[in-house]
């Protein structure tokens, strides 16, 4: 974007850069600064909405890596998130670890669990694997619901993170934990997918035969993709648990995992900006339905009291179907077209 016509890259280094011109740098820094002041001038609701958006983005980034890049569609992301949240909760509440230690550990533990979750990918692929991950979702949640250490059906209460005596107990304060982590995770994902490992993921996705011939160990990279994806889910789950201050099995249902896949499809499989588009699009749509539903109930009494739930799901289903049929490459593809056209401006091709 904003890359004026006629700017060429003189070195490979420059060709690889994400931020290309000095104008890009200025725009990036200014927007980051403005962004980080949101809690000071934005309403409380906006801040908390952005927090949930950011956590969802982290989880969906992980899903993008395993499903979008490595091609292993997983319906288990909600369960992996639950595991991350629970790990973090258990480590902080039962073992007295600090949040700052527990969060990365939750990521790593979930990642390791992801190796088990990803094990079926060694034998099966496509929707066989997708259904197997649904199975993994249910088995995981069943375990969380029945183990002593996870508080069984009562769940766990979680304390807010702390630095010294400063407690991150409001959404505005959590914003300053969640946002840097999200930006860091986005940066890492973006780099991961454009270097050696990322290319190997795409090779596995696009053509597993050729990938083998080119020296890529399929099993290693499939499992690595699951590890990375679950690491992201673990971090997201941990943040979510510490934001809502409670861990409960009913927070992470299969429906959540289905929404994540939907966000991926709407945003565009195999694109990091696509994650942002998808998450924001779907979440904003859902919020609008949620806000509009009381009015809808007033205007259309025959709908009864329940339009929000039903209409939200239906709207989601419709959007998903439309994208799958009309624009399977998602919003990210539209974005690329827009970028390309702005780059060529004022020439018209």
């Amino acid at each position, binding site marked *: 974007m904003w890359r004026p016509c006629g700017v060429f890259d003189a070195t490979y280094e420059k060709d690889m850069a994400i931020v290309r011109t000095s104008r890009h740098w200025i725009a990036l820094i200014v927007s980051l600064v403005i962004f980080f002041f949101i809690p000071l001038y934005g*309403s*409380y*609701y*906006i801040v*908390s*909405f952005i927090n*949930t958006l950011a956590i969802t983005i982290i989880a969906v980034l992980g899903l993008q890596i395993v499903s979008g890049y490595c091609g292993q569609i997983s319906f288990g992301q909600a369960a992996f998130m639950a595991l991350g949240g629970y790990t973090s909760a258990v480590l902080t509440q039962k073992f007295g670890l600090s949040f700052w230690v527990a969060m990365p550990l939750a990521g790593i533990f979930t990642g390791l669990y992801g190796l088990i979750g990803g094990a079926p990918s060694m034998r099966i692929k496509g929707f066989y694997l997708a259904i197997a991950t649904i199975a993994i979702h249910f088995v995981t949640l069943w375990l969380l*619901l029945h183990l002593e250490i996870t508080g*069984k*059906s*009562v*769940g766990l*209460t979680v304390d807010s993170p702390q630095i010294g005596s400063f407690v991150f107990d409001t*959404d505005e304060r959590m914003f300053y934990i969640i946002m840097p982590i999200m930006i860091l995770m986005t940066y890492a994902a973006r780099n991961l997918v454009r270097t050696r490992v990322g290319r190997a993921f795409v090779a596995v996705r696009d053509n597993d035969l050729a990938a083998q011939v080119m020296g890529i160990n399929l099993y290693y990279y499939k499992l690595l993709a699951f590890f990375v994806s679950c690491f992201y889910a673990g971090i997201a789950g941990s943040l979510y648990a510490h934001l*809502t*201050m*409670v861990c*409960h*099995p*009913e*927070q992470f*249902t299969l*429906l*959540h995992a289905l929404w994540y896949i939907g966000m991926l499809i709407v945003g565009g499989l195999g694109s990091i900006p696509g994650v942002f588009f998808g998450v*924001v699009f779907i979440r*904003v749509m*859902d*919020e*609008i339905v*949620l*806000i*509009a*539903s*009381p009015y809808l*109930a007033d205007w259309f009494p025959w709908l*009864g*009291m*329940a*339009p*929000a*739930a*039903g209409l*939200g*799901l239906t709207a989601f289903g419709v959007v998903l179907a439309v994208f799958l049929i009309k624009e399977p490459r998602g919003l990210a593809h*539209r974005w690329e*077209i*827009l970028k390309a*056209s*702005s780059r060529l*401006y004022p020439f*018209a091709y």
Partner: protein
Amino acid sequence: MRNHSIRWLVVLALVIFGMGVFTSTAPAKDIIFMDLSDYTGPVAGLALPGSMGTEDYLKYINNKGGVEGLKIKYMGIDTRYDVARAISAFKRQRRNKQVVAVGIVSTPVGKMMQALTKKEKLVVHVPGDGEFQAHPGNFFTWGPVYQDAFAATIDWIMDDWEKKGESGKPKVAVLSWDNAYGREMLRGGKEYAEMKGAQLLPSELFPTGTLKHDVYLTRLDKAGANYVYVGGVDPVQTNVMRDATALGLTEKIQFISDYWGPTALGISLHPKALEGMVVVSFFLRGQEAFDHPLLKELWTTVRKQPMDKFNEGYGIGVGAGINLVGAVTDTVKRVGKNKVTREEVHNSYLRLTGLDRQGLAGRCTYSPTRRAGADVVKFYKVTGGKIVPITDWVQTPDAVSMHKWK
């Protein structure tokens, strides 16, 4: 290129419009009761009529001029049993001082809200978890907590057992949802049952989406249960009874439903299956509810529905509405109608002891030490396709305090 830009601008405009809608608030001066409820998930059978009851009662009061001119607006939000949606809906209004009370019908959402609302002393209405009574805070239950209702049922069972002239201990089992709610009644209820000399069998807990209950029922049959206390929100009890009848267990076992059990609707679906089931309830059921003048008036004049579509769960909501109006009236009396704050409403809730709920339920029992909304229950029995009372209001024992809470 232009084409695409325009499309994107439209999307952007929509987003900004959406953001604008988020931040908009209700008209000034009114106060708001926010209802985070589940109208389509597992607890919808209870939450939907309940919410209607509260909404209609508040409308009814507003139509009569409100509380000394102060109107209480009802804001219902379907959480789809999803914590994230509930949080985001609540957070949208968290700083809105007009919101003086929140209703929640979901255990995980309730747990999350504990952390969010504790400091501000925002009144939260919840169904009946005993832990709120054990650790008094800003959460108020609609009626007696699950433990106490279960304990009252144990009393009834012991009487019934004696009346039947049986010897030995009655074998009692709980058949309920495999979640926090399903286990709650035993946290205290278990101790009470043991003290009273009933033999508690291991609980049978099943997931909320279960469609068939054969396995659990056959196991209870094999264990020789005499009384089975069925938890869940209708139609769960109806479904359990359908399966129990199909397996021929209703003759051997007396089934007793928790107070979210079958309403007139469930009974009309499976009248034969439900025959003989006992229901413990803190709100009016059956003909008593249909004949209640206030409920009748609200349903036919505010809701504008014929009585044959009436659901007794409506009465729960009306009861909660009476509590809220009572508390707001008290606050207005104490501090004047322009100084109604969350904290003052909370303080008024603690002074509601003895509030008359027009016979919809027992007298209100909120007090500085008590968060349970009532201390009486009534026993009903399904007879001839109708649900008829078999006792008058019965005092519930205190079972919550028998549990060793963390």
